[in-house]
C-alpha cells in the first residue's frame, strides 16, 4: 500500500504553489495520512513563504474536499502538524536555503521537484536558470548536505522534440535522434544573450525609441512617469528578445519551444550531476483539469489550452493551425499526481539507473485533434458564450489550415487595428468618443494574444510524436489492489467525450468568468459600484483638476475673456481670433511640457492690474466659468464634502481665475504670479502644479494634513495628470482624452462623462461681456 510505503516519510516538494504542485500536496495530505511534507517556497516580493503557502496553496479550492471532511479547525491543525514550509529558490545556487531550511531539506526521504517555468513563452535565460539548472542545483545541494533522498523530477514528454513516431520512455541520450549539445555551453550562451540584449537596449537609438514610445503611450505625463515607462519598455524589449531567442534556439535544435528545450537539457544535466542521489523522472504531456481528484474539473490558473478555448468560444480565434488526424496529448492532472506518488512510493530503480515514466494519453487512449475540435465546437454551440449585448456568439468552424496562413490572417487584422489606434490617438477626442479608442486597444490586445497562442502553441498542435507509456502501465499494474483505484494512473480510464463536455469545458468557462447567459448585464452596474467606492466614508481626501474636469475651459480661454473684458468692441474680436490663432502652437507646447507652456503663456499677464483682475475674477465666475462648468462635477465636489472628505483643487490655472471657485473646495493649490506695485509681472512664484509637481503637491498636502493617499480620490482628464491619478488609491478619469481613456479602461478606474448644463448659455468665443450700453428713452 502506498500509504504504508510512504508512512513516516518526509517528502520535500518544489513548485508546490503551481498547478501540479498544489494537486500533489492536496493528494498527499488527504490520501497518504502519515507522511510529512516539506515545501520549498520562493519568498514573494511582498510575502514570506508561509504566507504564500497559506494563500496560494491551502486556500485553493483544491482543499475544499479535505476541509469539508475535517472541518476548519482540524484542517489547519493537520496542515500545521504535517507541513513544514522552508524558504528556497531553485533558480539560485544552493537553493537559497538558510540553516533550518537546509536541515529540514537534508532530512527528507523523497524530493519531488515540480518547480518549473512552464509558461511557454519564457525568456531564454529564465527558462535556463529554472528548468535546465534547477534539478542539478537540487542534487548539488543534496551532495553538499550529504543527503541522498529519492529525487522524483518532473519533466515533460516534449523533451522528445518535434518529431513524428514513437517516443519511448528512455533517456534522451539513449534516443537515436539525440543531438548532443553541451548543456554548460547552452547555459553560458543564454546568460551572454541576456547581457548582449541588455547592452543593445541601452544604446542611444534604442533608448530614444523607448522614450518616443513611452510618450506616445502616456502623453505629457511628466518626466518621472515617462522615465519609469521608458525603463519598463526597455526591460520588456529585452525580455521579448530573449523569448524570441529561446524560441529560435529551441527550434534550431528541434524542440517546439524553450520550455521543452530547457527541460530536455535539464534531464541531461541531472543525469550527469546526480552522483549517488537516486533519481526517477516523470514526464507528463499537456496537463489539464482533473478527471476525478480532488474533484472533476479542478484546475488552477489559466493555462495553455484555456485561453485558446475561450478565444475560440468568443469568436476571436477564427482559425487554429493543426493536423486534424494528429493527436492532442492531454492528461488530467490527477493522473499525473497519482503517477508521481506511485513512483515516489516505489522508489528509484535498484540498478542505479534513472527510471523514466511518461504520463501521456496519446498511445493508450488517443484524442484526435478533429475529435477535440468537434467536441469543443458542439459544446459551445449548445452552451454558447454571450456578447455584451446579450446575444449568443456562434463559434467559427475550423478548417485546420497551416500555421502560416493563420498567422498571416491575424497579422492583417493587427495591422489594421494598429493603424486605427494610431489615428485615434492623434485626434483630440474626449469622453465617450475617446472610449472608442479604449475598445480598439482592447481588441488589438486580444488579437495580439491570439497571435501569441498561434505562435507558441501551434507547434504543439502540429506535433505528431507518440509517447510510450509502458512504464506507466507497469506502474499501474504494480499497485496493490487497494491503491489501484485511488491512485489510478492508466490514461485508458478517461472517457474523452465525457471529459471534454462534462468536466473540462464547464470548468474552463467557470474559471474564465465569461458571460454564459443572455441576461443583459446592467452596463451601469460597474460604474455604480466604482462610484460607491469613490464616495465611501473611508475615503478622506478628494483632489480635483480644474480644466476639463470641473469646467470645459482652459487657461487660454480664461485669459482671452479677461483680456477682452475692457477692450473696445472692434478690437475684441480681433484679439480673441489672434489668441485662438496661436492655439495650435500653444497646444503643441502644452503637449510637450505643460510647465513650459504655462510659464510661456502667463507672460501675457505682465503689467495687468491686480485690483482690476480681482474685480474681473468675480465676473469671470458667472460669465465664463459657470457657463462652462460641469454641474455634475460641482455636485461631486460637494458630495465629497458632505461625506466629510477634504476636497482640494489642484490646478496650473492662475489664482485670479480660480479664486471665485474657492468656496467650492476646502483647499486650493494653484499657480500664483508675483506682483510689483499693484501689477502682475507675468512671472510665476513657483513651479506650477502640473504633471509630477502636482502629484508631489498632493503628496505634500496629504503628509501635512495626515491623509493617506491610498484612501484618497483624484479626478482628472488627461494623461498629463497621470502622476496625480497614479498617486492615489481611487483615481477617476473625467471626460478622458484618448490615451487616458484606454489607460483608465485597462486599469479599471471609474470613468465619468460629465457635460455642461449649457444649452447655449456659454459663448463660442471666450469674449468678456461688453460694457453696458447707456440708453434711455427719457
Amino acid at each position: 500500500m502506498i500509504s504504508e510505503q510512504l508512512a513516516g516519510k518526509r517528502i520535500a516538494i518544489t513548485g508546490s504553489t503551481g498547478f501540479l504542485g498544489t494537486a500533489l500536496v492536496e493528494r498527499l495530505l488527504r490520501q497518504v495520512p502519515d507522511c510529512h511534507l516539506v515545501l520549498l517556497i520562493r519568498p514573494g516580493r511582498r510575502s514570506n513563504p508561509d504566507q504564500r503557502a497559506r494563500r496560494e496553496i491551502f486556500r485553493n479550492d483544491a482543499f475544499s474536499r479535505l476541509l469539508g471532511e475535517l472541518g476548519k479547525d482540524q484542517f489547519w491543525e493537520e496542515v500545521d502538524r504535517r507541513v513544514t514550509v522552508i524558504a528556497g529558490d531553485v533558480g539560485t545556487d544552493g537553493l537559497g536555503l538558510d540553516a533550518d531550511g537546509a536541515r529540514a531539506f537534508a532530512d527528507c526521504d523523497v524530493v519531488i521537484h515540480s518547480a518549473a517555468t512552464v509558461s511557454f513563452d519564457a525568456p531564454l535565460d529564465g527558462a535556463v536558470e529554472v528548468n535546465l539548472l534547477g534539478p542539478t542545483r537540487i542534487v548539488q545541494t543534496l551532495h553538499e548536505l550529504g543527503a541522498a533522498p529519492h529525487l522524483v523530477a518532473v519533466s515533460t514528454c516534449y523533451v522528445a522534440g518535434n518529431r513524428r513516431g514513437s517516443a519511448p520512455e528512455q533517456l534522451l541520450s539513449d534516443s537515436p535522434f539525440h543531438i548532443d549539445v553541451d548543456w554548460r555551453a547552452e547555459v553560458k550562451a543564454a546568460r551572454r544573450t541576456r547581457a548582449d540584449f541588455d547592452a543593445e537596449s541601452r544604446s542611444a537609438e534604442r533608448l530614444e525609441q523607448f522614450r518616443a514610445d513611452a510618450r506616445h503611450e502616456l502623453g505629457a505625463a511628466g518626466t518621472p512617469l515617462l522615465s519609469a515607462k521608458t525603463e519598463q519598455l526597455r526591460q520588456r524589449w529585452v525580455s521579448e528578445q530573449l523569448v524570441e531567442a529561446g524560441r529560435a534556439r529551441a527550434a534550431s535544435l528541434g524542440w517546439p519551444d524553450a520550455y521543452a528545450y530547457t527541460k530536455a537539457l535539464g534531464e541531461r544535466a541531472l543525469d550527469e550531476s546526480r552522483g549517488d542521489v537516486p533519481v526517477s523522472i516523470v514526464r507528463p504531456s499537456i496537463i489539464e483539469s482533473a478527471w476525478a481528484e480532488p474533484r472533476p474539473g479542478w484546475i488552477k490558473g489559466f493555462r495553455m489550452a484555456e485561453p485558446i478555448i475561450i478565444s475560440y468560444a468568443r469568436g476571436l480565434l477564427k482559425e487554429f493551425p493543426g493536423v486534424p488526424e494528429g493527436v492532442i496529448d492531454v492528461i488530467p492532472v490527477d493522473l499525473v499526481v497519482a503517477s508521481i506518488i506511485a513512483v515516489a512510493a516505489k522508489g528509484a530503480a535498484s540498478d542505479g539507473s534513472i527510471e523514466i515514466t511518461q504520463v501521456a494519453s496519446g498511445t493508450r487512449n488517443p484524442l484526435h485533434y478533429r475529435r477535440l475540435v468537434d467536441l469543443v465546437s458542439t459544446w459551445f454551440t449548445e452552451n454558447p458564450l454571450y456578447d455584451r449585448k446579450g446575444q449568443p456568439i456562434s463559434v467559427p468552424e475550423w478548417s485546420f489550415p497551416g500555421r502560416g496562413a493563420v498567422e498571416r490572417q491575424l497579422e492583417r487584422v493587427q495591422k489594421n487595428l494598429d493603424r486605427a489606434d494610431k489615428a485615434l490617438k492623434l485626434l483630440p477626442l474626449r469622453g465617450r468618443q475617446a472610449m472608442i479608442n479604449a475598445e480598439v486597444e482592447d481588441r488589438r490586445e486580444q488579437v495580439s494574444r491570439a497571435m501569441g497562442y498561434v505562435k507558441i502553441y501551434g507547434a504543439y498542435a502540429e506535433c505528431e510524436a507518440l509517447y510510450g507509456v509502458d512504464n506507466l502501465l507497469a506502474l499501474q499494474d504494480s499497485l496493490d489492489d487497494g491503491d489501484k483505484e485511488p491512485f489510478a494512473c492508466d490514461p485508458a480510464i478517461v472517457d474523452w467525450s465525457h471529459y471534454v463536455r462534462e468536466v473540462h469545458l464547464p470548468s474552463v468557462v467557470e474559471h474564465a468568468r465569461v458571460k454564459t447567459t443572455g441576461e443583459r448585464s446592467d452596463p451601469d452596474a460597474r460604474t455604480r459600484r466604482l462610484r460607491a467606492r469613490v464616495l465611501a466614508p473611508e475615503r478622506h481626501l478628494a483632489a480635483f483638476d480644474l480644466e476639463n474636469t470641473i469646467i470645459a475651459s482652459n487657461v487660454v480661454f480664461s485669459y482671452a475673456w479677461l483680456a477682452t473684458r475692457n477692450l473696445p468692441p472692434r478690437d475684441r474680436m480681433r484679439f480673441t481670433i489672434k489668441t485662438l490663432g496661436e492655439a495650435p502652437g500653444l497646444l503643441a507646447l502644452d503637449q510637450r511640457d505643460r510647465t513650459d507652456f504655462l510659464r510661456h503663456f502667463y507672460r501675457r499677464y505682465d503689467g495687468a492690474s491686480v485690483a482690476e483682475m480681482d474685480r474681473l475674477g468675480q465676473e469671470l465666475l458667472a460669465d465664463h466659468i459657470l457657463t462652462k462648468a460641469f454641474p455634475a462635477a460641482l455636485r461631486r465636489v460637494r458630495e465629497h464634502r458632505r461625506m466629510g472628505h477634504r476636497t482640494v483643487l489642484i490646478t496650473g490655472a492662475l489664482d485670479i481665475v480660480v479664486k471665485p471657485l474657492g468656496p467650492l473646495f476646502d483647499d486650493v493649490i494653484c499657480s500664483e504670479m508675483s506682483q510689483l506695485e499693484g501689477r502682475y509681472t507675468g512671472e510665476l512664484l513657483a513651479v506650477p502644479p502640473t504633471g509630477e509637481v502636482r502629484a508631489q503637491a498632493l503628496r505634500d498636502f496629504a503628509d501635512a494634513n495626515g491623509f493617506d493617499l491610498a484612501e484618497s480620490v483624484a479626478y482628472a482628464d488627461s494623461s498629463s495628470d497621470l502622476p496625480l491619478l497614479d498617486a492615489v488609491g481611487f483615481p477617476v478619469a473625467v471626460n478622458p482624452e484618448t490615451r487616458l481613456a484606454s489607460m483608465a479602461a485597462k486599469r479599471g478606474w471609474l470613468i465619468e462623462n460629465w457635460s455642461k448644463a449649457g444649452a447655449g448659455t456659454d459663448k463660442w468665443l471666450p469674449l468678456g461681456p461688453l460694457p453696458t450700453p447707456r440708453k434711455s428713452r427719457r
Partner: protein
Amino acid sequence: MRKKSEPTNNPRPGFVLEVDRQTPPILFHHGEGFRLEKLPIGRSRVIYPAEPLRGLDDPDEAIREALLNPIDEDPLPSLLHPGMKLTIAFDDLSLPLPPMQRPDVRQRIIEAVLDLAAEAGVDDVHLIAALALHRRMTEPELRHAVGDRVYEAFAPHGLLYNHDAEDPDGMVILGHTDKGEAVQMSRRAAESDLVVYVNINLVSMDGGWKSTATGLSGYQGVKAHHNVHTMRHSTSFMDQDNSELHRSNWRQGDIIKHHGPRIFQIESTLNTNTFGHDGPMAMLQKREWEWSMVDRASFATMQAGLKRMSPRARRMAFHSWRAPYDITSVQAGEVEAVHRKTTEMVYKQHLVPVEGQTDVVTMGLPYLTPYNVNSIMNPILVMVQGLGYFFNLYRGRPVVREGGVLIMSHPTPWEFHPVHHPSYIDFFEQVLADTTDPVEIEERYEKQFAEDEWYRHLYRTSYAYHGVHPFYMWYWGSHAMQHLGQVIVVGGEERAVRRLGFKPASTLSDALEMATDVVGSKPSITHLHNPPILMADVSAGSA
C-alpha cells in the same frame, strides 16, 4: 397719443366659448413656439380673457397724485425730512412678465419719490431690489427697472443694490407671529425711518404685505409660508381671501406694523397688453376667429421663421420682447388699504366667470415664468408654470375637478441655466430622481440645499437663485399635485417629463385619449386661453 388700431374705451370682457363646428383651431403657447389645436366639438370650452383695459392717460400725474393723496396715510412729503433714513425697495426681475418697454413703471415711481425726497432734503437714501431668494439682478436688468438716471446716481456709490438675504450682518428678525412665524427683514430697511415699497401688481398674488414680508426677507422668514402645508391650504394662492400664503404674510405684516419700519406702499397695476395691438405678435392676443388675413400671414411667417432658428436664437428672440403694457392704476399709502384697491383693479382685468368645473383642463405654456427672465425655462419651471401658476389662477374652485386631468403643452427640454439655476440642476438630477412627493422632498432634502455653502456663495456673489428655491417651486405645485388625477405634457422631452412624474404625449389628441383612462370617456374639456393672463372665477354647477 393713442394709436389708431388700439381698442379704446370699451374693451370686451372675458367669456367662455363653447367649441362647435365653426370654432377655428385654438392657439396654444408651446414654449418658444406655438401650436394650433382643434378641441373636441360639443364638450370643450375655451376661457378667453378680457381685452386689455384702457391705460391711464398720464401715468406720471397719477403717480404724483397718489403720493400726495395716499390712502389711510399722510402725504409722502410730510413723511420726508432731512437727516432721515429712507429706503426705497422695489419689485425685482420677476415682474412684470414679460418685462415692459421702457420706461418701467418702477422707474417712473422711483423718480417721483426721489424728487420729493430731494425737495425735502433727504440725503440718506438706499434703493434695494427686493428679491428675497431670487437671483441678483445684473447691471442691465437694474438699469432697465430703475432707469439709467437713477442707476448712475446711486449704483456707483453702493446705494442701489440687490437685497442679500444671506448677508450675516445684513438681516434682522423683527419678531414672531402668534403662530411662531419668524419675521425677517433687511437690516437697512428695518432700521430706516421710512420704507417706500414700489410694487408692480401683475397677478392677484402680488403685493400687500407679501411685498415687504417676503421681498425683503430671507430663508428664516420665507420658510414660514413657503412650505407644502401652506400651499396645500391656499385655494388658491391667487385668491387672498382663501390663501394661507396671504394669511401668513399678513400675520407677518402685523409684526412689521408694530415692530418694523414705517411702510409707505405704492402699488401699480398693468393691463394685459402683452404683445401689442399691432406689430409682429399682435395676433397672439386676438381671438382666433377674428384673425385678419394679415394676422394669419404673420403667424404663418413667424412659425416658419421659428422652425428655422436654433433653440438659442429662438430663446433670444422671445426673451428680447418688451411688452407695451399700459399702467391702469397707481395707489399709495397704508399697505392693506392700498392692496384692496389694487386687487379690485387686477380682478377687473383678469376675472372671467366660469360655470362649473371640468374633467380635463388644457393649457399652452409660454416661454417665460417669473424665474427665467433672460434665462432658460427648465423642466421644474415648466411644472411651476402649469401646476403652480396657471392651475392656481382661479377663485372659488379649480377649473378642473378633483381627480381630473391637467394637460399642458411645452417642449420641456432637459436644459438648465448653469449660472441662474445651479441648485435646480441638482434638485432635478438628485432629488427628483429619488421622489416627487413634496412632503418627502421637504422633509428629506430642503435643509441640505438651503444651507449649502456653495449655493449660498453663488446666490450672494453670482447670479444664482438661492439653493432652496427649486423646493419652493415644487411646493408651489403641491396643491395641484394633490388635486389632480394625472398630468400630461404634450410635446415635451420624454425623459424630462417622466422625471417630473408626469406623462408625456406627442399630440393633444393622444393626451386626451390618455386622459380617458383617468376621467372616463368623453370627458368635458376646458382650455385656459393664454396669452394674456386670466383668472377663472369658477362657480359651482356643471360644466
